[in-house]
Structures are given as C-alpha cells and as structure tokens.
C-alpha cells in the first residue's frame, strides 16, 4: 500500500512547546482565587473509621473548608470495572494511601499546616499484608469478595497431565516479582474549576482516562455528564498510572469546588504520590513445564497469585492478560494457566505498561531456559523449535491465519544483533572457571501482546473521533485519546492525513476535551493505534461521502468513484485540489464533518473453558540482553540490549524507536533496582521518593541499546499499525534475568525481583562461594 504520511518520522507536534518549557503541566496552572488542597492519609492500613475530626483544622488561618467521606453527595465508591474504591474513606480504611479528609486553603502552606490537625478515631483490624495471609484470613477487606479473592482467570487447552506423562523432561519452578512504581516524572495534579453559571465543573490536570473520570465524577457528585468537562493538561508521563488515583483526586477537588464556588488545585508531592498511587502487581508463580527430549514443548501449567492491594482496580483484567498471554508465543497443545488476584491491605495495583505480562514472561522464559539446559539445547535452539509460525494455534487456541506471525524472524534478528549464539557458547565455556569472578551472560525473551482490551471486554471496546473540515480546507480532529508523552497525537494526526488523503500540515489535533471529542474509552491496553486508527478511517470515509455529495451536486450524479489522495481529488477525468473540493462542499451548503466509530469485532472466547480467541490481534516482540555480573560484589552491569518488534506498521518510526529505548530502560529497572521497600507487617512503603526507589540513570542504561523494527502491516488494523507501548517493555526483565542466570551458571537461579547486589551475591555465594576463593 502506497502511503504519503504514515511511515514517515515527522516531528512531534508537541516537541517545541515541551522543550521550550511552554507546555502547561497540571501543577503549572494558576487561576484567580485558586484554592490549594492537602489530603490527610489514614494512620492504619486496615481499620474501621469511626470518626474524622476536622474542627481544629477548619479554625486555622486561610482554611476555607475541610471535606470528608461524609460530604460526598452521591455514591461513595468508584471503580472502572469493579466499584469498590473510596475516593474519600467513609467507614473503613483499607490501606495507608486512603485519604480520610481534604483541607482547602488560600495557600498550600496553610493547607499543609491545617492538614496536620485533622484527627480520626479508628478501630484497628489485622493488616493483611500479603496474598497468602489474606487468603487464609477470616477478615474480609471487602465483604463482596469471599476469601479476599477478587479475580480468577483460566486458560486451558488439551490435557496437561497427559502432556507431562508424554514429556521426557519436566521442570518445576517458583518465581516472584515485586511492586513497581510507574515513576512518571510529574506527580499527579488536578485543578477543578466550577462554573459561576450552573453546576458545572471543568477539570484540568494530569490524567490518562478522562472519560472514565467523567463517569465517576457524575456518580459521586451528582452532576450531569454534560456538565463535567475534562481537559487534560500536558501529561508528564503516565504508563497506566494516572487513571484511578487522578480520578479520586478529581472527585475530592470537585467536591471542594462545588462547595466553595472556587477553583481548587490538588497536587501530590512525590512522597504522597508513591504512598497513594497504585502500582504494578507483584505476582508469585508456580510453573511446571514439560518437553520431549527432542525439545518439543508438550505441557505447561502455571499458577499465579497477584497482590491486588486494597481495591480491585484492574486486577481481574490484569489476571486475564497474565493467563492468556503468560504462556508466551509458543506452540503448545496442553496448557493450564490459573491467574488469581487477591485483595490485601497494601497499595492497590492496576494498569501499568505490560499489564500482568512482564512478570509472567520473567517466570516463563527463565523456566524455559532451565528446561533447555536439561535438554542440552541453547535458549535460541529451543525457541526456534517451539515458536509460533503462520497458521499455528496460539496457546489459548487462537488460529493465527490472519497476519504474519513474525516472532521467529524477530528472534533471529535480535540474536544476530547481539551475536547471541556465539556469545552463549563462549560465555558458557568461560563461566566454568571458578576463578573467573566477573562473568558475562546473554539472555533472550519473546512475547505476543494482545492488542487492545481483549475478549474479557468483548463488545465494549469502542473508539470515536470527530473530524471537521473547515472552510479553508484545514482538517480538525477531536480525539479523546490522551497524549501521555508517547507521541500518540502525532501518530493520530498522520493517520488522519493519510485517511483524508491530504497533506499532514492541513491537519490539526484539538486538545483533548470531553465536551468536544466523543467518548472514546481510555488510552490504555495497547489500543491507541488500532482503535484510534479504526475510528479515524471511519470518520474519513464519512467526511469523504459528504465531500462527494457536494461534487455530485456540481458535477452530476454519475461522476463515478472519487479518490482522495496526496491532497488531490480525482474522479472522471478531473484532478482537483482538496481546497477546491472543500469550497465546493460549503458552496452546496453541506457540512463536511463526521464522527467515526470503530469497535473491535467480538472474538470467539469461552471464559468458562478458558479457550479460544482472547484478543483480536497481536504484536510480536523479542528482546535480548547481555550482562556482566561481578560475583564478588553481586553487581549487574547491563552491557547491551536489543529490542526487535513487529508492531504491524510503524506509523512514525522515530517515535517507535523512542518507545523501545524507554521500554528497555523500564525493564532494566524492574529487573535490577526498583524496590518500593514494602513492609508486609504494616503495609507501608519505605522508599517514597527517587532517592530510595532506584530508577536506572542514564549511566546505567547502555547507550548501545538497539531498536529493530520489522513491519508487517496488520490486515486487521485500519492503517496496519498495532501497538508498541507495552510490547517495548514486556520481555526485557525476562531477558536480563536469563542473562544474569546464565552468567551465574544456573538458569532459574535468580527467581525474585529485583536482584542487584545482595540477592545476586547470595546466589553467587551459593553456587561459587568456596570460603577461600583463591586468588589467581
């Protein structure tokens, strides 16, 4: 397919404003009469909340009001799918990030000072600080979830017992991942502006899912949806993180704006953000995988338990992805995966780039390396034998006959770039020497990423866009998908230009505004390109039909097919400029404006059996890593990573590269150093800012990382593109861990994240730690 705009690395439309400091982020907003807010956190991770005392705070200078859960006029709980979260705690607190009151004052200093004077009466309950404890406890965090289990998803195919009996080698392993903070550079900030004319709220700030927030604001504050307007500011990173927390904050600030008639701004400090915001799920895995001695995978059983924390949040759909994608892109006849999510008194856990899959791949790929070693095969040999190809059936039962299944090709490219096979052989030999204290290792991991929500949301996955062509032939698109820093709006603009058949400089993207853009769901789940593209194509067709109607009025009904391409409009023997055709349309008193709608076709998935087509289509990935491990210190140095991805079509290749570089860095942090310092006795987090929560720095991330794109435009996507945001970080932690375990000389040795220094040193001691390592 010849394209004019997509596939080109045009500059980002927001780049100039961002690099010159002109872009307005949430906390930059200043308004006359602005109130500043401060939340008061619960003192207990689990307690009945008997009373909140606000009088002393209310008497402080500058304080305008203090609100509590008692003040919410509508329903008291929110949730995207499962409504069980208090935006302001009412009768119970369920984790240390629950907010029991919010103080509004003329200055931030006054609000901060007064917030310290809010007290409460609690009746403490036992802290259920881990899924195992919660599952066995007689106490329920939420009465609606017996056994504190908030989600359980299965994927089953064939007969695993039979598969194991036919296997020559079976390995059983245990793995455990940790909480991961999204670590957006900009902490949450929302500003709510009440209308002086009517009960109407305009909400600005840092948020990922404005349409979801609109529903919750409507339900809790009893304001009609038409009078709740969300206009996200420039967002300083999100990665799935600015949904429920930003929503709860909007409700608290909205309550104060309604009560006082003044605009209210609510900005979290980093420590508050870390304390309150939801995280990536820590997941425990029990794996059992069998193969025949020729290396053919026969059977796989996975049992996973994820810590959902205080609120259900996205735990069931995260478990859905762990279950349906956790077996990887392998040919496999017998598989049985159970993903269970459990409520605890920890931070709730929800959407984060990768959504339950990076953890599963970490467990899977390290287990497969163990299996390969037992079979005396290298990881790549084993993968070559078992990776899915065209027309194969996925582990879930999906026949992949509708697009190019490129994962084997990605493996070859990534392996070649890293020189994997040669290094694997060389390092394996070198590492047999017990006196070699600094060792190298290579690891490689693959994934298939379901694009968009998946069959657990069958029938509910819809997007919309409004495209209006103005009298001067500029094309204005109003799209509700939020720019989170990934470059979404630049890519969407390219798709609008391509779909309309116009020059890209005709296209403008309206700032996301729920009062102007039709409801479109959230920018989540690897859905922006597929869903935005689908709606765009539909809107372009509708606008074209209106322009054609205008042409028919002027040139006659029988002008035949009309082609919109490269800013020209071709029909009959006419070749008109787009501008002329638009003038003609307005001249005929027609309106070239249309809403496009796209919904993902319903796929054939049986949730009871856990079998079928869990997603409409998939992105494929392979990431490889080379590391150096110092056995005497336990330090891990990442030498190089390769991210090789088939995202269908790269709408803007440079932006895809950016996603891959960032995704690899994020994977490195997850593997090696990011640790919230969770205390399972109290539910508290020790590392509440970036001096303790260690993200990799620019010196830690190799500048030799390589992104590789392999494009096979997907026939199931309007413009051929699928997704790269999540895939780009998905297999990385698995690949690094495989490499570290290879360096240590034992696949699967490190099985708990994160693992720099102490954990690696302990593993090295166990494997190579004769007390007197002699001194060469």
């Amino acid at each position: 397919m010849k394209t004019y705009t997509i596939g080109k690395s045009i500059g980002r439309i927001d780049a100039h404003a961002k690099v010159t400091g002109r872009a307005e982020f949430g906390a930059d907003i200043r308004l006359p009469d602005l109130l500043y807010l401060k939340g008061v956190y619960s003192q207990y991770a689990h307690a009945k909340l008997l009373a909140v005392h606000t009088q002393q705070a209310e008497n402080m200078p500058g304080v305008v009001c203090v609100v509590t859960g008692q003040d919410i006029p509508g329903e008291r709980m929110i949730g995207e799918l499962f409504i069980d979260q208090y935006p302001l705690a009412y009768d119970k607190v369920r984790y240390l990030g629950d907010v029991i009151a919010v103080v509004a004052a003329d200055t931030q200093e006054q609000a901060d000072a007064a917030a310290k004077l809010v007290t409460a009466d609690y009746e403490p309950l036992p802290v259920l600080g881990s899924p195992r404890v919660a599952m066995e406890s007689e106490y329920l965090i939420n009465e609606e979830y017996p056994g504190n289990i908030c989600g359980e998803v299965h994927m089953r195919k064939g007969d695993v017992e039979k598969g194991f009996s036919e296997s020559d080698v079976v390995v059983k392993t245990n793995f455990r991942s940790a909480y991961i903070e999204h670590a957006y550079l900009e902490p949450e900030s929302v500003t709510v502006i009440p209308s002086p004319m009517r009960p109407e709220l305009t909400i600005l700030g840092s948020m990922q899912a404005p349409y979801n927030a609109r529903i919750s604001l409507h339900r809790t504050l009893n304001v009609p949806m038409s009078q709740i307007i969300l206009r996200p500011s420039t967002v300083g990173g999100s990665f799935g993180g600015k949904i429920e927390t930003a929503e709860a904050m909007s409700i608290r600030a909205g309550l104060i704006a309604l009560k006082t008639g003044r605009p209210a701004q609510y900005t979290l400090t980093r420590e508050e953000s870390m304390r309150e915001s939801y995280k990536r799920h820590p997941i425990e895995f029990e794996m059992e995988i069998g193969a025949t001695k020729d290396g053919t995978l026969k059977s796989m059983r996975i049992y996973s338990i994820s810590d959902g924390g205080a609120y259900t949040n996205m735990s069931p759909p995260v478990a859905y992805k762990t279950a349906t994608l956790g077996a990887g892109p392998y040919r496999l006849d017998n598989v049985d995966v159970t993903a269970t999510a459990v409520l605890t008194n920890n931070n709730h856990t929800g959407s984060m780039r990768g959504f339950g899959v990076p953890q599963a791949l970490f467990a899977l790929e390290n287990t497969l390396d163990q299996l390969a070693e037992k079979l005396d095969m290298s990881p790549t040999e084993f993968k070559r034998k078992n990776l899915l190809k065209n027309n194969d059936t996925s582990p879930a039962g999906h026949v992949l006959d509708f697009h190019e299944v490129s994962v084997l090709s990605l493996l070859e490219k990534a392996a070649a770039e890293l020189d994997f096979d040669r290094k694997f052989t060389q390092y394996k030999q070198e590492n047999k020497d017990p006196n070699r204290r600094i060792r190298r290792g290579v690891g490689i991991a693959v994934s298939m990423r379901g694009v968009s929500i998946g069959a657990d949301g069958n029938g509910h996955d819809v997007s919309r866009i409004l495209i209006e062509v103005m009298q001067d032939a500029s094309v204005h698109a109003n799209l509700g998908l939020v720019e989170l820093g990934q470059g979404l709006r630049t890519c969407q603009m390219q798709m609008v230009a391509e779909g309309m058949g116009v020059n890209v400089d005709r296209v403008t993207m309206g700032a996301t505004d729920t009062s102007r853009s039709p409801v479109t769901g959230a920018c989540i789940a690897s859905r922006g390109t597929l869903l935005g593209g689908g709606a765009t194509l539909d809107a372009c067709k509708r606008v074209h039909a209106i322009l054609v109607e205008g042409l028919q009025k002027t040139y006659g009904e029988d002008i035949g097919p009309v082609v919109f391409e490269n800013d020209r409009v071709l029909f009959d023997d006419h070749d008109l400029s787009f501008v002329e055709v638009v003038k003609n349309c307005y001249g005929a008193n027609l309106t070239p404006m249309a809403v496009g709608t796209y919904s993902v076709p319903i796929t054939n998935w049986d949730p009871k059996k856990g079998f079928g087509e869990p997603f409409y289509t998939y992105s494929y990935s392979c990431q490889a890593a080379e590391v150096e491990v110092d056995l005497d210190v336990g330090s891990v140095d990442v030498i190089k990573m390769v991210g090789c991805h088939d995202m269908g079509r790269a709408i803007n290749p440079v932006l895809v590269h950016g996603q891959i570089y960032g995704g690899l860095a994020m994977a490195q942090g997850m593997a090696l150093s990011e640790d919230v310092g969770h205390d399972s006795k109290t539910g508290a987090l020790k590392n509440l800012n970036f001096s303790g929560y260690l993200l990799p720095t620019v010196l830690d991330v190799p500048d030799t990382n390589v992104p590789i794109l392999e494009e096979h435009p997907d026939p199931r996507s309007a413009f051929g593109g699928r997704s790269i945001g999540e895939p780009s970080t998905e297999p990385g932690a698995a690949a690094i861990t495989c490499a570290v375990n290879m360096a240590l000389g034992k696949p699967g040795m490190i099985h708990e994240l994160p693992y720099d220094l102490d954990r690696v040193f302990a593993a090295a001691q166990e494997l190579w730690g004769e007390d007197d390592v002699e001194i060469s």
Partner: protein
Amino acid sequence: MLKFRDYIRVESKAEYEKAIASIEGPVLLLAGGSDLLVQARQDDRYEDHTVVDIFGIEELRTIEDTEGHLVIGACVTHEAIAQSLLVNRYAPILAEAALSVGSVQIRNHSSIGGNLANASPAADTLAPLAVLNAEVVILKDGIESVVPLAEIFEGPYKTNLGDRDLIVSVRVPKLSADVRHDYTKVGRRKALSISRMTIATLLQTDENGVVTRFDMTMGATFPCPMTFPDISAMLVGKRPTKEDISEVARALSAKIPEIAGIRASTRYKQPVCRRLSVRILQELIGDEQHA
C-alpha cells in the same frame, strides 16, 4: 514546604561571626544544601532555626597548596574537588571519591564541609579522608583550632560541633607521587547512588617492593570514619605474598562485625569486603606480589 525561622546570607568569616553573635535560638549552617534541604522537607524540625547561608563565603571556597598540606575550604564543592588539579595531584583518591558523589547537579551544590557536618556514615569522602589522615579546622568562639578528622564524629549523623561552630577547612597531607591508591564504591546504580560500601586504600613501596605505607578502610560501614593501624602493620615492612593479602582481607573484613555489630547487612558486607580487598591489593601490588 520548608520551614525556617529566618535566613541570613553572609559573605565573609567576619560577617559570619557577627551574625551568629546576634542570633537568638538555634542556628543552622547552610553550605550548599544537598543534605539540609532534603531533611527539611521531611518535617518541621528546623522551624525554630535561623539559617545562616555560608555557601558564598569566598574564604571557604578555595583550595590552597601549603608546604605539606592541601587546605580545602569547607564550602568547596565536590565537583570543584573532583576537577581540581591540586587535589588530583596530591590527593587523587579524594578527587575520585568526590566524583562519585550523586550527580553533577548535586556535586555542584554539595560541599566537603557540609558533608562532614552532616556526618552520614555513607558520605563518599570519609574513607579517603580517613586514610589520608586529614584534619579539620574549626572556628569556635572566635578561635581556630585543628583537630584530627575522627575527633569531630560522635556517631551516625552526629558530631561534637555546636550549632555555631564553623568548619573552616579540611587539611589533607599531600601524598608523594609514588603512593598508589584505590577508591572502590559499591552502589546500586552508577550515579545518584547512596554507597552500600566504599573502600579506600593507599599503598607505597620502596624500590625492593617492601611496603612503606599502607592504609585501608571502609566507608558506609562504620558509625564514624575509622583507621586501622593494626591492619597497616600487617603489610608495612613486608614484600606482600598472596597469603599476606588474604590475611589482610580477612582481618579488615572482620572489623565489620567487630565494630558495627552483626546486622542484616553483615552477611553481604563482610564477604564482599574481603573479596574486594583481595582484588584491590592484588591490583595495587601487581607484579611485585610475591609467591
């Protein structure tokens, strides 16, 4: 929000002395702020303190080359120390340690005097200053005196300096060019990392390979900076063998439980110290190592 009673900026030692004489209540010296401003964010602990900003006192921002010493002003930044030709020439181990502090932004706003006054056991410069036998010049009640480095420390984050006592400078005896050194830092990442452990080593041999000077200690390990004459004595006067190196490593790492007590981190730090010590000494002694 940071809370202080008042803020005064002084430009000279004389202004400083005048200022502290007139201030009522506790004084807090600001020498860059890379520790103080972080701590002030935690709570209102400094609410009743008057901040005296000494970072701009020119007299405290110079590095002087005297007969036997480098005299490093208390407000000299870690970045300035890392870049200083004098320090790189006469105390290169200190320049290396200074370069390992935080990030360039932090190094430009953190001073050696502030680092001492904060008395964090994890401060990167403490182990090098200890093996260098550094001294500290203190201005107290209008009188300057010179005290050995270790004497100002009482424990983690605790010195015996009063709130109005000023660290004027750090005096570092100049090393001769044939003193070899090693500074090793164990951290969780390559920048902006609080040290898990540092090891500072100085070693000098004569033309026969006999050790004439040996000083080795750890940082981020003990409550206060420590030096170990008994460890030094294990090599001085010897042409070290493999066994000698092993013995030193064992003895040095045994100081960890001995001094700091057995903690959760001992299981990591003690064996890592031993292995790194072997590696460092092998590297420093090199070909002169005897069988």
